[in-house]
């Protein structure tokens, strides 16, 4: 399968990565060769195979409903690139 440049641009947008024009072309080639390589998985018939999400299954039964964690407001916003009144400040967010 070969990847188109427009597709790389679309994916870059989805991943919120700015990719320069020059770089985009090189990326297309690199991804092409990687995708060609991973295409070898198609040799395998996996119709009846269950996917593995966790290699070793831990039993998870959860935690008790206890309040035992929390940072101070200073710890939360103190190192933020931009903050105001104890909140993170970002360029305008529209249409919640």
């Amino acid at each position: 399968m070969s990847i188109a440049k427009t597709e790389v641009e679309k994916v870059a947008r989805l991943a919120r990565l700015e990719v320069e024009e020059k770089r985009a072309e090189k990326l297309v080639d690199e991804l092409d060769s990687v995708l060609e390589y991973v295409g070898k998985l198609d040799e395998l018939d996996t119709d009846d195979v269950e996917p593995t999400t966790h290699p070793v299954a831990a039993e998870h039964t959860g935690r008790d409903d206890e309040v035992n964690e929390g940072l101070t407001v200073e710890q939360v916003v103190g190192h933020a690139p931009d903050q105001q009144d104890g909140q993170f400040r970002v360029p305008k967010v529209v249409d919640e």
Partner: protein
Amino acid sequence: MSRDILKELRAGEISSLEVIDAIIEAAQDDVFNAFVSLVDPSELREQARGADRAREAGEARPLEGWPVAIKDNICTRNLTTTAGSKILEDFESPYEATAVQRLRDAGAIVVGKTNLDEFGMGSSSETSHIGPVRNPADPDRVAGGSSGGSAAALAAELALGALGSDTGGSVRQPASHCGVVGLKPTYGRVSRNGLIAYASSLDQIGPMASTVEGCARLFDAIAGHDDRDATSLAVEPAGPGCADVLSEGVDGMTVGLPEEYLGEASRLDPQVRSRVEAAIEALEEAGAETTSVSLPHTEYAVATYYLIATAEASSNLARYDGVRFGRRAEDADDLAELYKKSRAEGFGDEVKRRIILGTYVLSAGYYEAYYEKAQKVRTLIRRDFESAFEEVDALVAPVAPTPAWTLGEKRDDPLEMYLEDIFTTSANLAGIPAMSVPSGTTDQGLPVGTQLLGPALSEPVLFRLAQKIFEQCNDEASGRG
């Protein structure tokens, strides 16, 4: 310092303060670029004095006074945790990783944070924001990666123990290239709490040390269930710790030799092959049986690994957006720009490449063809090991196809770099423990490790095998330094 320094420390033949002073001096001009950050010397000396007092009072804990180095993608409270990335270059974690806390509780002294490939994404430790790690055996060569800083720090005797992280071979391969011992534990055996995620279903923190015993002692200290990690295993293997079974030997064990790793098709460098064969001989001499086994899906491991790892990474690295912590681009007018520019400026090329690949394989229309397909092949790879371990106690394999290569050599071709992981990714995909044991050097003096793999929770078995190889193949190195 000698390799027996741990014994000397325990026996009181050398003080923690002397050890720390030696390290402080050696680390001053970190010629191998092993460290991203170091703890203040006065602080280190203070802790070393405390360790010496504890030992005198007969209250020494298992790792009392051991200087340890922590890979910089593992969160520590008193130093920055950068993951080797510009996007986190000033990041200070308000909490500490469980594994680090356990080391401290056992008496270890954290000396610094070690260099790595950015976010653990690499096999050469060349991509961090502070530049490449150099191999102490040959400074013109890579240390391997991504835990190259930890491996180099041990080889250069800047620490007696270290933590690395292994997602597709990142503890084992640099251990092999630098001539130290490194373990990737069973998935879930060591808490991932505080490990900056690369690929969550593959990542494990692993202990590294100059000796098998040192590695075993570190592992015994950090392993065990943690309530903060839901994937952490609740079962504790019965019996003594790994450090206490090393002398039990390997008599009567059966060790499998996978055709796919050792046969003609594996394109193994001849010098690497001869070191691995020496390791196999050492085990045979020590009383282990060897037999040939097959892991038929080995050739699909790297492809499977890259699909799963990049997909998970694309999601795990979404949080670095310049909003709450880390680096933010300066001149973004709107939110979309803020994200795109902060991430473009903060991430290096390999990280971006993997994020793009991972985003692609998860996106609508490709999920089944790539991601889900890889998860299914992962099942086949897991089953290969399950059937092999019905016949044998452990497997012996190479760690890497070649010894350490020259800095910069493989930077331009990502696929070539990915194929470096051909012998190591399977263990991560299957969640099984695997370790690298120094098995001598090439004619040029480059270290070569042998890989041992076992079924889930078989770390004690691997350590016993490793101890034999270590004793037999490293005689000439034991008095080094």
